[in-house]
């Protein structure tokens, strides 16, 4: 039963990863593309991690997975900010 739930959560996570990737292809400019990448992938990874934690049933591993997710959130937001800031400053100098 939990394995079915875990699989469903992982598949839901994959859906959001797919949405993020489609956004990268469909959105017209750099900033909008960053929106797709910083948001959809985070919930995708979050669902994936909840699914994995349910599947492995080990609270210690679940905590480590949660830390990985928080680290990815921080890294994703920070790198998106750096890319956007660089693009913005270059636009102003042109």
């Amino acid at each position, binding site marked *: 039963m939990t394995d079915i739930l875990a699989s469903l959560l992982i598949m839901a996570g994959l859906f*959001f990863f797919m949405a993020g990737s489609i956004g990268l292809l469909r959105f017209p400019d750099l*900033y909008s593309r*960053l929106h797709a990448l910083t948001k959809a992938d985070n*919930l995708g990874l*979050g669902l994936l991690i909840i699914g994995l934690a349910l599947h492995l049933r080990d609270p210690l591993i679940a905590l480590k997975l949660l830390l990985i997710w928080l680290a990815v959130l921080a890294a994703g937001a*920070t790198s998106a900010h750096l890319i956007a800031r660089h693009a*913005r400053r270059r636009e102003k100098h042109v």
Partner: protein
Amino acid sequence: MHTSHAQHHDDETISLPHYFFIYAVLFLFWLLLVGNLRLQEMAAGALVALAVTLAAGPHLSIFSGLRLEAAAPFHLLRYFGYFWAALIRANLDVARRVLSPSLPIRPALVEVRTELKSNLGRLMLANSITLTPGTLSVDLRGDHILVHWIDCPPGTDLEAATREIAAGFEQHLRGFLK
């Protein structure tokens, strides 16, 4: 960037309680990674955490933005609750825009003013804005955050709308960050 930050560096000195806090967090992190409570692991963790705190301490001045108060953990939890709800809304929102055939976006750049004083507080606010519905932090200068807004309806009251972008987070962040 550097000039606007310089004016805050005066109050960005790290205090002894902050060192203890960093030490405790590192020690707990070590325990999490080894995954047991044997005495030799705890002793090794205590030593490693001390070495890391002393080596990295002078470069960790950003953590002086933390409020070390009894109510802070409570505010942190409230912030997490608010943040996760916003994160889920953000994801559903962006997935909907990506997958709808008409690609409904009306991008605009807006400015948000923050009342948080510390660099850590502003950093957390900027990153929270990035991870929530329809907004992306582009630049941070002093107390102004430049925000890319993916769906700005024409004729909105920009002043009120930008207040709304930051206000929810700011209210919770203020409980545990300066």
